[in-house]
């Protein structure tokens, strides 16, 4: 519960109200005072003073002075009139509440307006500053432009002067030149006529060239008369040139060299896979260069029991395209039959590698690969590894009875060896 401050005293004039409020020892700061048009509050916890004023006041101009434990308010009335009392009597609670809220709202609005006004003035200041800097820069630019313009004009004047000199010089030269040329042309014309008459030329084409060459010789003569030092045309010769090799038809750019190298490298690789030992393969028939055809051939030979031949066929196919897993798979089978167990393991492993990712598509192939590898391991008496492979095969294809049977057998074998 706040402690109400009630020992205030006040007096008034026509235009203002002077209110003095003693604070019972409390210290007041401007933040504790809240004043709006018709509401005045001083709140210094736990002390509280509030007054709903008799008539509206001009709260912007009113002042409050804090000194010696008192606050002296000078409130300027909006309408000059004598108040009956400081506060509104007969004010019921609701009205008071309403007035209070109103007051707060009004105060907030005023605060907002003030901030707005401040913002606007700030912006205007900024604008002004900007304009000022722009003006300064403009002046600088103009100065530079003027300098340039002056230079230009100076040079233009010089040019004009020089041109005039040229013209005068030319005019002076051209007159005697004309005379000289005239003199030269006369004997030349005669010589030309002689030539034309002597060598009756019906063909227009050649006559044109004749004319040209005489024209050329015209100038030669005019030159010779002045400086007789021109050597004869050079003896024709050819120089053979070798260029720094470049694969691409485009111009060489340093920044592209790395990319170009990479591309060439890739092309070389691709070609190598196809072309490796192409020299040896040159005497093979076209079909024999097709890995699929070779695979089929291999399969046939396997079926007929020619395991070595099959291996050869698969070898060649692998050389041509080492990315086909089936080639390795089938070669593994051949090796099994040939009892090249290590090779069988290698090939099945390679096939499995190429058969990643494990998808339903290559299930059958993977089963085969595992089975073949398992068999190879068992025949090498590496039963645990063999069992692993069989179990892997079972996992892929649980319904295969043969694999199950073989797996069982291996387990027994292992248990047997362990037991013994």
């Amino acid at each position, binding site marked *: 519960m706040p402690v109400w401050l009630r020992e205030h005293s006040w007096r008034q004039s026509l235009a203002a109200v002077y209110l003095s409020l003693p604070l019972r020892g409390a210290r007041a700061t401007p933040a504790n005072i809240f004043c709006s048009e018709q509401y005045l509050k001083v709140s210094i916890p736990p002390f509280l003073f509030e007054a709903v004023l008799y008539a509206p006041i001009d709260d912007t101009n009113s002042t409050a002075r804090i000194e010696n434990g008192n606050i002296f308010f000078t409130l300027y009335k909006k309408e000059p009139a004598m108040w009956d009392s400081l506060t509104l009597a007969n004010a019921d609670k609701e009205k008071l509440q309403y007035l209070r809220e109103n007051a707060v709202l009004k105060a907030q609005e005023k605060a907002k307006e003030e901030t707005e006004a401040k913002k606007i003035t700030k912006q205007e200041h900024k604008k002004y500053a900007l304009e000022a800097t722009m003006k300064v820069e403009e002046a600088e630019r103009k100065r530079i432009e003027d300098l340039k313009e002056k230079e230009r004009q100076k040079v233009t004047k010089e040019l004009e002067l020089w041109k005039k000199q040229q013209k005068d010089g030319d005019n002076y030269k051209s007159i005697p030149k004309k005379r000289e040329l005239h003199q030269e042309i006369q004997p030349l014309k005669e010589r030309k006529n002689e030539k034309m008459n002597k060598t009756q030329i019906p063909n227009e084409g050649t006559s044109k060239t004749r004319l040209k060459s005489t024209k050329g010789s015209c100038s030669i003569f*005019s030159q010779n008369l002045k400086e007789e030092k021109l050597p004869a045309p050079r003896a024709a010769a050819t120089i053979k040139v070798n260029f720094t090799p*470049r694969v691409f038809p485009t111009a060489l750019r340093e920044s592209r060299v790395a990319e170009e190298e990479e591309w060439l490298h890739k092309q070389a690789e691709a070609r190598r896979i196809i072309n490796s030992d192409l020299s040896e393969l040159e005497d093979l028939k076209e079909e024999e260069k097709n890995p699929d055809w070779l695979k089929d051939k291999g399969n046939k030979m396997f079926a007929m029991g020619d395991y070595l031949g099959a291996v050869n066929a698969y070898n060649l196919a692998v050389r041509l395209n080492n990315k086909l897993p089936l080639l390795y798979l089938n070669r593994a089978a051949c090796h099994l039959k040939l009892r090249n167990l290590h090779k069988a393991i290698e090939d099945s492993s390679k096939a499995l590698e190429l058969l990643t990712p494990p998808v339903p598509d290559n299930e059958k192939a993977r089963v085969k690969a595992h089975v073949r590898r398992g068999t190879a391991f068992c025949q090498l008496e590496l039963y645990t590894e063999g069992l692993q492979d069989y179990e892997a095969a079972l996992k892929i294809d649980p319904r295969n009875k043969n694999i199950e049977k073989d797996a069982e057998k291996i387990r027994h074998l292992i248990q047997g060896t362990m037991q013994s």
Partner: protein
Amino acid sequence: MSAAVGAERPQVVSHVQQALSYTVFDCKWVPRSARLLCLGSAARGTGLVQLYELHGARLELLREIEKPKPIKCGTFGATSLQQRYLATGDFDGNLNIWNLEAPEIPVYSVKGHKEIINSIDGVGGLGIGEGAPEIVTGSRDGTVKVWDPRQNDTPVASMEPVQGESKRDCWTVAFGNAYNQEQRVVCAGYDNGDIKLFDLKTMSLQWETNIKNGVCSVEFDRKDINMNKLVATSLEGKFHVFDMRTQHPTKGFASVSEKAQKSTIWQVRHLPQNRDIFMTTGGSGSLHLWKYEYPAQRSKKDSEGSEMGVAGSVSLLQNVTLSTQPISSLDWSPDKKGLCVCGAFDQTVRVLIVTKLNKI
């Protein structure tokens, strides 16, 4: 944009800008005049030669000549000052020499190459240097041919790939070392980064190297002196400056290289009045002005006692961006120091003035 601060640095001032209605591939000053030529290709696939005259702050079109094939390059290098015939190479491989007063029939014409002539250079004319006037052309068919306007139909020298060798495009050619009547050297740059130096006196390959990027432009600092420096520009924003005074038997010529910008450097042109200053034009529409500084000693002995050259250093004097499209051609005026014309692929030709070159 260039910094205008630093009042001693040369400034590149854009004097006149002229919009054209065709693609301009080459622009050249007409010697001893304030006239310039623009060579290019019109939209309908024909070649155009336009002659402009510089009048104050604008260019006035004096003549327009249309030819059946688009024209790629041209030079005045092989004609006398009185005649000022223009030698052009076109998209079809034809080399023509035109008298601009009477351009209907060429003074000299030959179908020199099977494919477009990418670059042309002339020597022996304009009162510069000695010896026979000669024109060299480099073409996409991989050959470089040297022509004498007095000899029809066959080149006086031809640099061709060996039988059976696949050809590389020749992108640029330049003459050099023409300090007396017999000596001549042709330098050719190819799209696979090869630079080859052919000695015309001995008709042999004098030197070759590979700069790892297609060579867009080569130029000697002067054609008519004992060969001093060669600048070769390439794709990827690099250029190399070779010191050509000392040739090592195995290592060739010493060089310094600079990476100027990210885009192709299309052209290099030395200032006619100062052979240590050159301008490079870039694919990003920029121009860079460079100065070469010689090292303290231009040659030194290597471990075996043979002479080898020492390359100097290159410093950037100024750079400016004029356009968003590559500036494909640049020509300094031989008569007025600092005046140059450049043509860009945004169908604009610009006349520029480079100031303060005297103070360098």
